[in-house]
């Protein structure tokens, strides 16, 4: 066990949130709670990425007063990656919710176990 567990509290919290979201995805029966679990996993990954770019004592990467020193700004790359990720996560959520609506119209239930049992009884 390394020594940095309590110093890296942000990353530890991000990993805990990831596992909570993953447990939701595996163990919940309701479809909407599974989708909420997937969103929590997404947010945890973005938190982890942004923690990677943070440097203590430095500020937002916007050039002020012409100061262009490397020592004055945080790492801007993880910020750009997470920006793309947040918008993609909303598209994935919208797609999954529309699939849920179609499933509900066909089977009139939100319980995944019941839907899969009915599918097997129909022989699909």
């Amino acid at each position, binding site marked *: 066990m390394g020594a940095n567990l309590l110093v*890296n509290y942000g990353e530890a919290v991000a990993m805990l949130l990831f596992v909570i979201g993953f447990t939701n995805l595996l163990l919940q029966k309701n479809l909407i709670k599974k989708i909420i679990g997937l969103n929590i996993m997404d947010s945890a990954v973005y938190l982890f990425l942004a923690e990677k770019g943070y440097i203590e004592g430095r500020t*937002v990467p916007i050039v002020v007063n012409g100061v262009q*020193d*490397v020592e004055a*700004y945080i790492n801007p790359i993880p910020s750009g990656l997470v920006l793309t990720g947040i*918008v993609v996560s909303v598209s994935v959520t919208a797609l999954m919710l*529309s699939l849920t609506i179609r499933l509900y119209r066909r089977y009139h239930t939100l319980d995944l*176990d019941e839907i899969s049992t009915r599918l097997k*009884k129909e*022989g699909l």
Partner: protein
Amino acid sequence: MSRLKPREEYEKTRAFRFFRWLSGSKDPYLGEVEMKPQEEWKEEESVHLDHIHDHQALRSRIYDTEHNKKILFFYKLYKLAAVLFCVGLAALLLYTVSYLPKTGAADRPANNEVPARYIEKGLQETGAVNIVTGMILDYRAFDTFGESNVLFVATVTVLILLHAKKNGKGEEEQENDRIFEPKNDAILQAGATILVPVIMLFGVYIVLNGHLSPGGGFSGGAVIGAGLILYLNAFGFKKTEKLFTEKVYKWVSFSALTTYCLAKSYSFFTGANHLESHIPLGTPGHILSSGLILLLNICVGMVVACTMYTFYVMFRKGDF
């Protein structure tokens, strides 16, 4: 020239019989063996229905979730295994986190020469004061292009899945969807008359100032989309359809994506060949600076705003 035999003599030779057997054109049993007259095999309707009935009874016995012991045992085993797996995963991840370099340290491997180059030469090479915007729209412009395409594809898929037919179940559902909604709510309409222009103006400000202050295409587009959703909620579908129909959506997203694609394709020719692309960069700090970043921000903002609005309209009413 060879002499051709007449047909009757040829049919008595061995060669003719061999080739007839090879091609299979004559049934060898017909006329040689005693057989009953042949009839086509017809399956009776009742036998067919019995088959289907048996299959269904078998399946419902197998997948009967309440009485089939093996299925109940599997569900309990699944829950136990899932909990154990997640606890194991959490322990492994925390163990890994404890070995990572300290948060906030300046000497971690992620801070190598790449962000140093972006920070030191960012202003000269892209002309943008906001380093993050300059990075995602100039150094890494193809990532943003791919992401706009992902938004477009997601919108098209939601359109396919949730499009309501005109004379189907869709209409009844649409009317019953709004039974308990207060129509022409006075407070909401008064609030929306004040708020919607401010929200749209703020969204446009964020998009246009992407290279000078925090913001950019994604944030501004999301705010504009939220403003359109508020307008829809307050004033009903008929008024909003005057502003935003399917044709508007098609033209806006198509032209925005094509403009982005055409505007950034110069870098195929100038990038690896180390040529200068003579796009004027202007003075940093002015709004008309930094080359093509303003145009690209506007394109991305429009795509994102249309996407957010289309998602909402598809979910409420199946049609534009």
